[in-house]
């Protein structure tokens, strides 16, 4: 901190994708920039370090993307998942700008790779980062450093000081010591609040205490809360979060991508009572995985148990922890802490409801059960081939929807209009576009597009 100026042109709160895109853009425009990253160096980069791709519009093949993915189709996909709950103007802005993001990212050190094995269906729409999000974050930190951007780690911003329609300084704790950071413009890019379990529990109910958080423990929404308390305009449903069903043995925080389980379509999923509760074969997994977080969250103890037999164990991506394995259904139930009799009964009932037919793992095969209260409408094959395998499922929270409302310049507003020197980018304002649902790769698109806009606007403000 010895080499810091008294006042920076721009202070950026957060150290993930959106923060870095803003900082780099502003520094390239000539501004002096400080990044305040709440996490220590080893955990820098927030949830962005867990990502693998971003969704990118393009009119023709453009490495690593195949074919074309144009504005209308992109928007249509977005409308579908958000059920229309989106600000079309901002959405179109994000979509249109995504095309120029790809070369911009490359010019700033990000490298791409063809779509990963097991994800071929995304090769047209999503550009994969070589090495994943952590490699992207590293590249951006290096680029920022070369541009003279200062970075403070373990720098937790606790208060954004607002005086009328301006922000004057930040209260920060840097490595445990209170510091006041002055700047002429500010960019907030500190993510959502999903790591604050108390907040989740207030919004969702006490069962949220059993949720696992897929990403960084540092996104606790401190700055978001502070801004809302100071009258910043908010957007998005505070009671909602994006949650998927993940391996119940995942760490409480930061388990990331590897804890996902793709076995559900080939399983039967039981609750603690040993009963099925939802159609496991409703649709192809990419279209259904996001609902299973809520489904499991609604079960007793917020836990589910996926059972598979030897026929299906190789049909999905490997899991990070090996499944529980047993030679009989009863033994498997026992090992998973379930009542063997209840499970036996459910499996027998399910097996009896299965019908012969052609099984096709990669498409809707219509192989459905008959006569069950909870049907399975695709991939329904009896569990009859030992060894049997089991996974425990728990809800894993990806992000929250509540955020700051911004305009097309990424500017934050109070009740009386824009706050003159305050911009927001990334997860903290994603609710402005994503009212509900989620489109794979759109989080990084929002962060890159609005991070760059915020950086540009903030730099123009101080120029």
């Amino acid at each position, binding site marked *: 901190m010895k080499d810091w100026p008294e006042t920076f042109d721009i202070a950026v709160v957060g150290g993930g994708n959106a923060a870095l895109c803003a900082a780099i853009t502003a520094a390239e425009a000539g501004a002096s920039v400080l990044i305040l990253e709440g996490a220590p160096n*080893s*955990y820098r980069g927030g949830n962005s*370090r*867990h990502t*693998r791709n971003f969704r990118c519009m393009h009119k023709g093949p453009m490495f690593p993307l195949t074919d074309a993915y144009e504005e209308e189709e992109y928007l249509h996909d977005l409308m579908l998942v958000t059920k229309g709950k989106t600000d079309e103007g901002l959405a179109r802005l994000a979509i249109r700008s995504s095309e120029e993001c790809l070369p911009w990212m490359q010019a700033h050190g990000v*490298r791409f*790779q*063809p779509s*990963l*094995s*097991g994800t*071929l*269906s995304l090769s047209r729409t999503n550009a994969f*980062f*070589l*090495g*994943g*999000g*952590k*490699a992207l974050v*590293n590249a951006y*930190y*290096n680029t920022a450093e070369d541009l003279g951007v200062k970075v403070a780690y373990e720098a937790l911003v606790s208060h954004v000081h607002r005086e009328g329609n301006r922000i004057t300084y930040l209260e920060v704790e840097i490595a445990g010591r209170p510091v006041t950071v002055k700047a002429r413009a500010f960019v907030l890019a500190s993510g959502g609040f999903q790591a604050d379990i108390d907040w989740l529990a207030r919004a969702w109910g006490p069962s949220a205490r059993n949720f696992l958080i897929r990403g960084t423990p540092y996104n606790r929404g401190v700055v978001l809360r502070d801004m809302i308390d100071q009258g910043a305009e908010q957007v998005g449903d505070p009671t909602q979060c994006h949650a998927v069903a993940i391996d*119940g*043995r995942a*760490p409480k925080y*930061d388990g*990331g*991508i*590897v804890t*996902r389980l*793709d076995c559900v*379509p*080939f399983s039967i999923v039981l609750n603690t009572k040993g009963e099925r509760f939802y159609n496991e074969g409703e649709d*192809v*997994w990419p279209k259904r995985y996001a609902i299973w977080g809520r489904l499991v969250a609604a079960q007793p103890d917020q836990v589910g148990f996926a059972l598979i037999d030897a026929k299906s164990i*190789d*049909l*999905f*991506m*490997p*899991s*990070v*922890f*090996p499944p*529980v394995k047993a030679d009989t259904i009863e033994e498997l139930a026992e090992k*998973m*802490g379930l009542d063997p009799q209840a499970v036996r009964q459910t499996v027998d009932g399910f097996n009896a409801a299965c019908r012969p037919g052609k099984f096709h*793992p*990669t498409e809707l095969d219509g192989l459905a059960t008959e006569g069950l209260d909870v049907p399975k409408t695709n991939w329904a094959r009896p569990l009859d081939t030992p060894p049997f395998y089991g996974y*425990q499922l728990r809800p894993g929270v990806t992000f929250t929807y509540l955020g700051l409302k911004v305009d097309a310049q990424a500017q934050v507003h109070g009740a009386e209009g824009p706050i003159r020197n305050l911009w927001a980018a990334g997860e903290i304002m994603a609710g402005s576009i994503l009212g509900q649902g989620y489109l794979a790769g759109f989080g990084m698109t929002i962060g890159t597009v609005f991070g760059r806009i915020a950086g540009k606007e903030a730099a123009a403000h101080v120029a």
Partner: protein
Amino acid sequence: MSLDLSPPILSATEDARRQIEICNACRYCEGFCSVFPAMTRQKAFADGDLTQLANLCHNCRGCYYACQYTAPHEFALNIPAALAEVRVESWERLARPQTIARLFQTHGVAMAGLLVVVLALFFWALSALRPEAGAGFYAYLTHNTLVAIFAPAFVLPLALIALSVRDYWREVGGGRVRLAHVLSAFDSAARMKNLSGGHGEGCNFEKGDRFSDRRRVYHQLMMYGFLLCFASTASATLLHYGLAFEAPYSLISVPKLLGVPGGLMMVVGSAGLGWLKLRADRSLGAARVWGGEMAFVLLLGAVALTGLTLYAATGSTLVKPLLAIHLSTVMVLFLLMPFSKMVHGFYRLAALIAEAGKPAPAGERA
């Protein structure tokens, strides 16, 4: 149902398995090198699979800096180190005889010790076996004596290596060797494709999470320099036996045209690799063999440097001591081939050939 991930005492292979299983559920690093595509072929990894993956790894460290699960994360991933450990263990396990192998892989001091012993022997030989006549260094040792000493010192270690590589092939389940597989492996090695980082900007060796091509450049200087020197010696042998044209050769002769640039390249390569090794983070490699590897790099440099000096000293009184030193370094290099980092070239090629012969990595899953 909790999984204890606190580091229990895992063997190198067990720990590599634990880590590779995490990667196989992630796959973010797929584009860096051939290790990641290769692992998608299976869900469970036998010891031989891990040996093969370890020998495909070039320790470029890209997958360390890119990994969101490195310590202090509880998964504590360090793939470059885990694979380096398995790799070194595989070389130790497959080398024969075992005890010698372990000694020289880990201890640079042992290598230096051997050098001193060999050096003393050569000094003795130069004095005791000095011929009546002869030009250049043949004034000190006859060609026949040299051949008598060096031919076995070269052929025997190679034979030992051949046996080890055959065992390697069995362990990793290599199939029938086809020309196409061999060509593809040589192509990868010739370009050091797997040290390009997948984007052509090199690896993360000495500059932390920044990419650098230095290691690839120095390694290629070393490798091609070595091959040039080897070609030089081979051509000299041909001249000697085929055309009865004996050393010393002038600067514009095939052996010298190959040998002098080759030697210079090796000296630069060795200095560069040694320097990189000092700067790189030791905990991302097999830390326990650091000394042995460093000694090996320096030995290669010494072979080249003493060879060049010997040539420069032609006709002076320094020839005798320089000859002794040069021959000693060459001798030690040969003798240690099966037990030093030198074997990596053989195993690496074998691994690349085996990989080329395996079915294409897994495609789409549901």
